[in-house]
Structure formats: C-alpha cells, structure tokens
C-alpha cells in the first residue's frame, strides 16, 4: 500500500513540475503543453474522444479475442504435432517480422468497415500469445510427464494434467504483451481506411492542425487504453504466479526459442526447411483466393514478381522501391544500433548501481508496451518532421523492450560466478566486464532479434506520419494512387528486409557464442 502511495505521489510531483515548467514557458507551449492544457482540451472534446476511443477499443477487443483464440489453438496443435510447427515456422517468423503498417495498408484496400482493424489486431496479437503459450506448454518438468505416462497417459493426457496448467503463467504473460499490440493493430489499420471514428483517424485528422494539446491528448489516451489492457493481465499473472518480472521474458522472446529439439533424419530436416520457406508464399497465393478477394487488389507472389521484373514499368517500380529502401534502412539501422547501445549501457550501469534498475525498470516495463503510434505525434512536435524525428521514434521503440530484456539478462548472472570475482577484492567494474557482460551476451542477441522488426516498423510509421519519405511514404502514396502492385511490392520488400535482419542477428549470434552450451 505504501508503495502504491509513493508511486501516486511521484506521479503527482512529476505532473506538478511539468505544469510549472510549461507555465514558465521553459518547454515551449507549442511543443509540450501543460498537463492542465491537455486535460482542458480533452474535457472540451470528451464526446468526440469517447466515440474515437470506443471505436478503436471495440475493434481491438474483437481482434484480441480472435487472434488469441487462434494463437492458443495453434500452440496446442504445435505441441501435439511438432512437424506442423516446424513446417509453419516460416509463417511464424513472417508474422513476427512483418511491419504491421504494411499489412494494414493491404487490408485497407481489400476490405471496408471494421474488418481491416479486427484482422490487423488479430495478426498483431497472434505472435506474442502463440510463442508464450507454446513455450509454456513445452517447458514442463519431464519427470512430471513421465509420471503421467507410467499410468498409461497419452500425449492428450499429459496436455490435460501437466501442460495446460503449466502454460498458464506464460499465456497470461503473452496476453499482457498482446493487449497493447491489439490496440496498435487497430490504430494502424485506421490509417487510410477513411473510417469516421477511431484514435488513428483522430490522430491523422489532428496532425495538420498543430494543436499540441490535442496530439498529446490522443497519444496519452491510446497509452492509457494500452496500459489498462496490460495491467489487467499483469495483475492476473501476478495472482497466478506471484512473480511478474520473470514471465515477461517468454512473451517478449523472438522465435529462436521455438525450436530446442531436433526432428527426424537430415534429409527430412532439409525437406522441412524447404517446406517452411515455401509455406508463406503458398499462404500468400492461396489466402486471397480462398477469401474471394478481387485479384486486381489482391496481388499474389507471381503478380508481384511480374510487377517488379517483367512488366512495362518494372524498372521504374524497382527504382522507386530501391530509393525508398535506401532512405528507410539507414535510419532504421542507425536507430536500432543507438537504441540497443543505450539500453546496453544503462543495463550495465544498473548492475553497478542497482537503485538505477529499481528506478528504470517499472516505467520501462510499461513503456515498452506503449503503442508507438501514440508516441509519434509527441516526437514530431519535439523533433520536427525530418531525420531527427525518425531516429527519435526508432530509438524509443527499440530502447524500452531492449532495456527490459537486457536488465533481465544481467539479473540472471549466476551469483556464484560473481562471488568468485569478489573473493579477489570488491571490484564491481571488473566483475561487470569479466562476468556479467559475457553472461548476458545471449540476451543482447535476444534483444536485437526482438527489436529489429520494431525498428523497421517505427521508422515506417514515422515516415508515414511525419517525414513523408521512404517505405512509409511509398505505401501511403501508392494507396492514394491505387497502385496496388506497388503496395504489395513494398509490403513484400519490407518483410524480406525484416526477415533478413532477423537472420543476420542469428548469424552473428552463432559466430559470437559458438562453443557455448545453450
């Protein structure tokens, strides 16, 4: 209770300081308005806010239910039939790495009404929940399943008595991460949809008005809804488990933790790998046909190949795509590196000064789930509409999840290893360099894999909303010009880039940690 009181007091103090600074004109009223100003604007527009929030929340909730239902069923299916999990790994990694904004633009041109929002929410939710549930289902006490088998229990029996309940903390941790992701999906699918209500629509409409209080109000509203969803499942997880910190790792993990076992003979494995690589394309080719979409709008892999390689305008299309890529990738890459470096530095400092971790970790846990769209308008106000804004968005979306992962990695350093160093004199910096940093190396790569796709998404959102350059702009413009071929080509290129970045991190990790026991 006293902790709650202290937190409330701290928030009040921060708000008071913010108010005073804004009134004194230190922050520049057009960039960071006073809290009272934001609240006043919110109050006068409360009827509109309520409608916008309700529209987005409704779509997000529907997508949350559908996506999580599918995710849980898939996790159970994957545990009962590991070869299906193996085959669909390409699809899983694609769903993890794809920048949600590109699917949003594709969905928006294909469907009307609430469908794109619900679908994108469901897609955003699928990965965190599926992985967290799958890891929970898989990482059980092997002796406990032996006990069930000794009484003739089959795999369904093990699922019922051991796995399902063992996966509950992981599932809740997944849902905790999924709740803000659902909101992000719902907002991103409002861009370009022309829907009347929704926080995304509201944001797009207010961006041109230079009304700082309004933009902050929208951002804070989206954050509040996301934080509410996060908090509901965080409290649930705490009830089930008693520990909140240790379970966030499973939900935040990149797909590498999926496969810790080997399956079949080498030949079989190669076939599986080829199947896993081909399946995303098969899904891309088959899904529009099954859903009965207009082939003019829904371009399949063959159409996209024609568009980029064989058609009349192929050279122009390729040039446009390459120029967009060359504008987006350096910014996204730089933001990724800077964000990771900052997270690593602060996480290392937290080892030397534990009170720093106590101060930084709780807000980081919440901020890592903050919908990045909510962030962008504030950053645009502060940094303007050029490269600095893009970098700021990318660094921010990279920093918080990376910091949380790294802080956990550092905290898992075996105490005995630290004690060995301490026996030769208390040298914190030495023990940091000799023990903590090498031990946390796998977490550095886990963090890099986790945030690499987010960096691309952040950069694209910043381009879409603020700078008007790169892939984000190309998507936005081609939707406006009804250039469906380009929308699909851009989506394809961004997915390929994200997956390549993801695989590159994996390659560096294998080189850096080869010979270590996993």
């Amino acid at each position, binding site marked *: 209770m006293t902790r709650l009181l202290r937190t409330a007091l701290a928030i009040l103090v921060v708000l008071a300081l913010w108010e005073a600074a804004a009134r004194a004109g230190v922050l520049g009223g057009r960039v960071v308005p006073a809290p009272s100003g934001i609240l006043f604007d919110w109050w006068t527009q409360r009827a509109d806010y309520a409608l916008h929030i309700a529209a987005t929340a409704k779509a997000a909730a529907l997508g949350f239910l559908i996506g999580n239902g599918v995710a849980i069923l898939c996790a159970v299916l994957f545990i009962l039939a590991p070869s299906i999990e193996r085959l669909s790994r390409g699809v899983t990694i694609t769903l993890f790495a794809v920048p949600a904004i590109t699917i949003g633009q594709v969905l928006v041109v294909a469907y009307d009404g609430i469908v794109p929002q619900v679908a994108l929410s469901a897609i955003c939710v699928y990965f965190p929940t599926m992985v967290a549930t799958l890891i929970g289902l898989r990482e059980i*006490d092997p*002796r*406990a399943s*032996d*006990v*069930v*088998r*000794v*009484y*003739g*229990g089959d795999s369904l*029996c093990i699922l019922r*008595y*051991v796995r399902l*309940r063992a996966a509950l903390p992981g599932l809740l941790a997944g849902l905790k991460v999924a709740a803000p992701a659902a909101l992000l999906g719902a907002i991103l699918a409002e861009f370009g949809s022309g829907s009347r209500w929704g926080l995304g629509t509201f944001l797009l409409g207010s961006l041109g008005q230079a009304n700082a209080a309004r933009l902050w109000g929208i951002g804070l509203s989206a954050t509040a809804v996301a934080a509410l969803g996060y908090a509901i499942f965080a409290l649930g997880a705490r009830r089930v488990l008693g520990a909140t910190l240790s379970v966030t790792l499973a939900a935040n993990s990149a797909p590498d933790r999926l496969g810790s076992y080997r399956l079949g003979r080498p030949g079989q494995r190669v076939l599986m790998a080829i199947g896993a690589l081909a399946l995303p394309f098969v899904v891309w080719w088959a899904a529009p046909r099954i859903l009965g979409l207009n082939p003019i709008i829904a371009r399949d892999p063959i159409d996209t190949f024609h568009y980029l390689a064989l058609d009349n305008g192929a050279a122009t299309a390729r040039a446009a795509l390459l120029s967009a890529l060359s504008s987006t990738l350096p910014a996204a890459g730089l933001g990724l590196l800077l964000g990771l470096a900052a997270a690593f530095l602060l996480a290392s400092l937290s080892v030397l000064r534990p009170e720093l971790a106590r101060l930084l970790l709780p807000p980081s846990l919440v901020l890592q789930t903050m919908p990045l769209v909510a962030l962008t308008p504030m950053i645009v106000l502060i940094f303007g509409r050029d490269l600095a804004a893009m970098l700021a968005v990318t660094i921010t979306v990279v920093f918080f999840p990376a910091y949380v992962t790294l802080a956990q990695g550092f905290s898992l350093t075996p105490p005995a290893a630290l004690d060995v160093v301490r026996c030769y004199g208390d040298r914190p910096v030495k023990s940091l360099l000799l023990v903590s940093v090498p031990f946390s190396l796998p977490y550095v790569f886990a963090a890099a894999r986790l945030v690499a796709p987010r960096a691309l998404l952040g950069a694209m959102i910043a381009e879409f909303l603020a700078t008007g350059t790169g892939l984000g702009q190309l998507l936005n413009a081609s939707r406006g010009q009804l250039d469906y071929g380009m929308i699909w080509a851009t989506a394809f290129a961004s997915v390929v880039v994200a997956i390549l970045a993801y695989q590159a991190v994996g390659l560096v990790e294998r080189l850096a940690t080869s010979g270590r026991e996993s």
Partner: protein
Amino acid sequence: MGADPGRALIASPSNGSSSPATAALAPTVDVLVDHVEKSFVANGGKVVTALDKVSTTILRGEFVALIGPSGCGKSTLLRLIAGLDEPTEGMVRVRSESPKTFCARGELGIVFQDPALLPWRSVRHNVALPLEVLGRPVKPAAAHIQSLIEMVGLKGFEDALPGQLSGGMRQRVAIARALVTNPSLILLDEPFGALDQILRRTMNLELQRIWLRELTTTLLVTHAIEEAVFLADRVIVMQANPGRIVEEVIIPFPRPRDESLFSDPKFHQRCDRLASLLHGGEEH
C-alpha cells in the same frame, strides 16, 4: 504374501536358506529382462550403446537394488521396465505382459530423484493424480489417500502446495503417490539422491517400514552402496562402456533391519565387496 516362495528363497537365507524343499517350488518371476540392448544416436551421429545384452529377473516380493557408476545404464534399464522407453533389441516383460500394458492397469508405482510434483496441486491432489490419469474415481479413495499421507508422515499437510514443503517432505509425497494404486511393482530411481546423508538414512528406514507392510516387488536404482546394502535382498552391480551387469550379490541380513546395521562389521564387509566390484574388480 508371507508364504511367497520367491521371497523365502532369495531374501531370507538366514531361516533355513536353500533347503531342497523350498528350492523345488518355482519362484514367480515378476520382471524379466531378456538380452536387452538399448542404443542412442548421439549429437554427432555416433551410436552409443547404453545397455549391451542385459539379462536378469526380479522375483515376486523381492527388493532388488541396482548400483553402478553414472553412465552404466541403470536408469535406462529402469525406464525400459517402466515402459517409458523401448529397447532396441531384446525383450522386457512384467508379469508376462509388455510394460506398457502392465502400466496402463495402474500396477506400477514410480519415484524419481526429482519428486516431479505438480506445483499447482496440493499434497492430496498430487497423490490422487495417478487415479485421475487412470480414469478412476477419486472420491471413494479419499480415505486411502489420507492413510497414505499419514503413513509417509505428512498428516496436517494434506492441503499444502509443494512449494511450501521441504525437499524430504516432497519426496514423501512422491512415495505416497507411487503407492496410491496399490501397485504390484515399485520402481525407485535414485529417490533420495538429492537429500543429505542424515535425511537419507531416515528415509531409508521409512522406506523399509513401508515396504515391509506389503512386501511389494521393488527395484531401487541408486549409486549409494550403503543404501543398496541396507535395503535390498539382492544387489545387481552394473558397469559402463557399454552398460552391462557384472555381478549379482545376495544380501542375507534378516528383516526388519535397524539403524545398528549401519555400524555392523558384516554390513561393511558387504559394502567393501560391492565397492571393489564397482571399481572394476580390483582388490581393496
């Protein structure tokens, strides 16, 4: 059970040992291990032979201990008898049936080094788990479960969760769970390996007390020589590379054996003999 010919023959040579009259009665074989081979494919694609043509039998009512250095395949052999793995070659029969069929009737109880309790189930519900897996009603067994919990000395902890118990207490829950179906064969895979020496002795005494009530056929896998000699009627010694049986030693001490046996010179003689067998037959 007391008139069991197999037990009379093997376990109690002290009261008349192998007189022709008792030897003529064919002892009932509970576990038959016949030329069993088990090999694994290691990470590099190399084939490792965990068990090489192993044959032995366990008679009804016998308490057999299986000792050997790590890697000798003693736990592998136990898993084959439990039907948790299949042999590469050869045959395992429990009461003339395949281990899987035998187990599916709830005739087997097993305890591992790790108690393997489900952390979200109370002591009572952990003990009841085998009944649920077998699809048997739990409610009518409530009194039986209660008596088992009391027998392993956990009265008052029926509703405690495993996380609230000490290591020794958790292992007692696992023992009660292994007994809940009134099994006719009990397998113990280093059940006290994680406990300290003092607690281990206490648990050995208790295990003997529990075993003497029903005289259920029992196979104990352990790497502690003293534990094997104290508890078993017969000790099977295994060696590694490849895993094989090198010797079987009868332990003739009368039952019930009490703590004083641990300081008996004869007890140490047996232990020393086993130790020399384990070290490859060198003279001690």
